[in-house]
């Protein structure tokens, strides 16, 4: 697809997702309290979007990822929370 065709197909979808994202950040910032490790990772990931990197999805995923290499001693939960707590 050309860039124009890509925009024709995906712009409206991306536009509402971007507005939804902005509204989420507004919602968090209206609420009392502090950011936790998830929101800190989120803000780090957001910065990846303006760096001009050609693999932005990959960089965003890496911003949320556990970078360590050693297994953890024991699994104390089954669920993932979306961001690595160790990044805070």
């Amino acid at each position, binding site marked *: 697809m050309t860039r124009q065709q890509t925009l024709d197909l995906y712009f409206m979808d991306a536009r509402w997702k971007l507005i939804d994202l902005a509204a989420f950040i507004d919602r968090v910032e209206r609420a009392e309290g502090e950011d936790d490790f998830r929101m800190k990772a989120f803000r780090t990931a957001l910065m990846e979007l303006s760096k001009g990197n050609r693999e932005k999805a990959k960089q965003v*995923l890496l911003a949320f990822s*556990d970078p360590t*290499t050693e297994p953890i001693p024991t699994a104390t939960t089954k669920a993932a929370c979306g961001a690595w707590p160790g990044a805070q």
Partner: protein
Amino acid sequence: MVSRVTDDYTHMVTAGCQAVCEPAFWAGFDRSSAAGFYDYFCQLTEHEPKRAAKFGLPHFSWLCINPKESEDLKLADDVLAIIPKFLDRPNVLGIGEIGLNKNSRNEIKVLEKHVDLAARHHQLILVHTPHLEDKLKGTRLIVDLIKSDKRIQPGRVIIDHVEEHTVQLVLDAGMWAGMTLYPESKCSPARAIDMVEMYGNEQIWMNCACDWGVSDPLAVPKTALEMRKRGHRAEAIDKLVFQNPAKFLGQCPNFKLPEL
């Protein structure tokens, strides 16, 4: 499919699905004994194929104790001991979906035992990779572990749930990459096609998350439609959604499809 309604089978057949391949996975709760797994394996190899057959859909399954229940080593050993009794069932494709969930030491021990089981019985391997923040680390650990067992041919392994930060790692290891499609929270149809456009269409396929959570058994046909919108040719779509999985699964003698 064990947690889906029969309407899903109707919709899948109507959408052109040619077969369903169901991995052993977490039921949403921990089973209390190996006997619970025995019943589950009977369901996957006896009951569910009959239910699918009523809709003209061949049903295949994978067997294992999934990584979410691998923290209990005694339970895992008990389940591993009963799996060989089911390996000669006619719809069994191999060992899966094994892998890691939280990347713990016990999960790794159980993964090693599953890989050994697959090697001793010459089974294909389907691997679950962890979700979200645990995926990158888990994928690295899994790929390294499997590569270290020289009995396993990489081309007989599919590493599932890849995303943009893990797909190249898997392909570079000579293994197959599976992109699991979700309606929310994980890989979307558009991103799956992006990955194919960026990393190529060899040794890669797509599958639907199709479980008790928010999931869509028609995610693959919907992604085929998305490919058409982007101008992908019919041959390229067929390769990704049918020929590639058939090539990988065809390494198992049990995988036979009716003539199209």
